[in-house]
């Protein structure tokens, strides 16, 4: 009897499928390819971002490759209202993986989590400067990657 009971328990343990979340399916970006190969980005995007952040804030180096605004622009995900979702939505590109991996993300407490929404404003006559960043990758990428590699070597990584 006891053996039979144990067998039942074991059987039930075996037959209940383990609860494993589906691997995340982050939305594809716009354009042909990312600024770096996908495998590299999966592992190293944070290094690119943190390197760029130092250079951009302290030295005014504003190359587009690892510009967070570029990521946000290319990887925007439209919500039900047709507008790109904010980080508050689980559909947000960054959240799809970060939720899955359980890695807390605080970039968007300060940074915009979606491209700027064009609104009618009373002071809308202010023009952007002609070189205003478009957010699209593909310019100066080689230099960025070389600089990042130098940084990673310097950091012993």
């Amino acid at each position, binding site marked *: 009897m006891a053996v039979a009971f144990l067998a039942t328990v074991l059987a039930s343990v075996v037959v209940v499928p383990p609860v494993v979340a589906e691997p995340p399916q982050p939305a594809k970006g716009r354009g042909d390819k990312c600024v770096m190969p996908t495998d590299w980005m999966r592992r190293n995007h944070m290094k690119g971002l943190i390197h760029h952040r130092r250079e951009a804030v302290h*030295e005014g180096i504003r190359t587009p490759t690892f510009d967070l605004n570029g990521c946000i622009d290319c990887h925007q995900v439209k919500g039900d209202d047709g507008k790109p979702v904010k980080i508050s939505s689980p559909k947000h590109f960054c959240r799809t993986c970060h939720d899955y991996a359980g890695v807390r993300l605080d970039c968007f407490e300060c940074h*915009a989590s979606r*491209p700027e929404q064009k609104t009618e404003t009373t002071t809308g*006559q202010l*023009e952007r400067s*002609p*070189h205003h960043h478009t957010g699209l990758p593909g310019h100066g990428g080689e230099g960025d990657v070389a600089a990042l590699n130098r940084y990673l070597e310097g950091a012993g990584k």
Partner: protein
Amino acid sequence: MSMKFEFPETCSEGAACGCAESDARPVAVAPAPTDVEHATVNVDPVEVGRRWFLKASAAFTTTILAPGVTLMAFGEADSAHAKPADQPVSAKQRWGLLIDAGKCEQGCKACVTACNEENGIATPKNLATDAQWIRTLQVKNPENGSTFQMPFMCQHCSEPPCVDVCPTGASFRRADGIVLVDRHICIGCRYCMMACPYKARSFVHEPLHDQKPEVPRGKGCVESCTMCVHRVDEGGTPACVEACAKTGNAAMIFGDLHDPNSEIAKRIATYRTTRVRADLGTDPGVFYQNI
């Protein structure tokens, strides 16, 4: 960087007069603004020697030294300053502002509105605590009641007390003179707010939403005027300067103080300019005329 607070010494009028060479650092005529918008800045005559006095005495004459001269619209001489995006900023430049209070129209707030719009700052409801990167000051001479308005923001000091006191390195002066807070590093201790003699900094007390992509801002950090660094790095002009030019008042110009051919450097070399509380030795990058 060490603290350097020097007060002007009384000029001895002799050959050894130290102030004869010090035109680049004129005496202060106005104490630092003491309160938020619409603050009244009391201007006390500074106890100074003759040469110092000559500089200070221009404070309340309304004579515009060169009435025929109009401050040029923004950027013409300097609009080609964009550096290649992959190059760091350098100390060859020092960005600065020249503001002619004589042209600042009483009641106009175009610069303030433009700054708020550009940087995603909500119109302050509580003037004591809400972020203000630029404000208009009403300056009053208590002796004769004369008043004028002038825009006021971070003075982008080259000896910035905010940087001196910052315990984390978050407050820093870029090589080209723009003083910024690296919000990634700032711990929100607000020492810099206490140290700034110009009350130029604000603390963000509450969570923010829908920030501008070019201007990340957030709760728990101190911030101040960035001289629209995101525009400057692309060859642009600060939003306040652009907006002021659009009103037709053209009271502000922006440019490179180190380039002798820039409009701003030429004007500073030609006309009498004042820096607010220059006696503190902060070496501000913002120059005023007719204050």
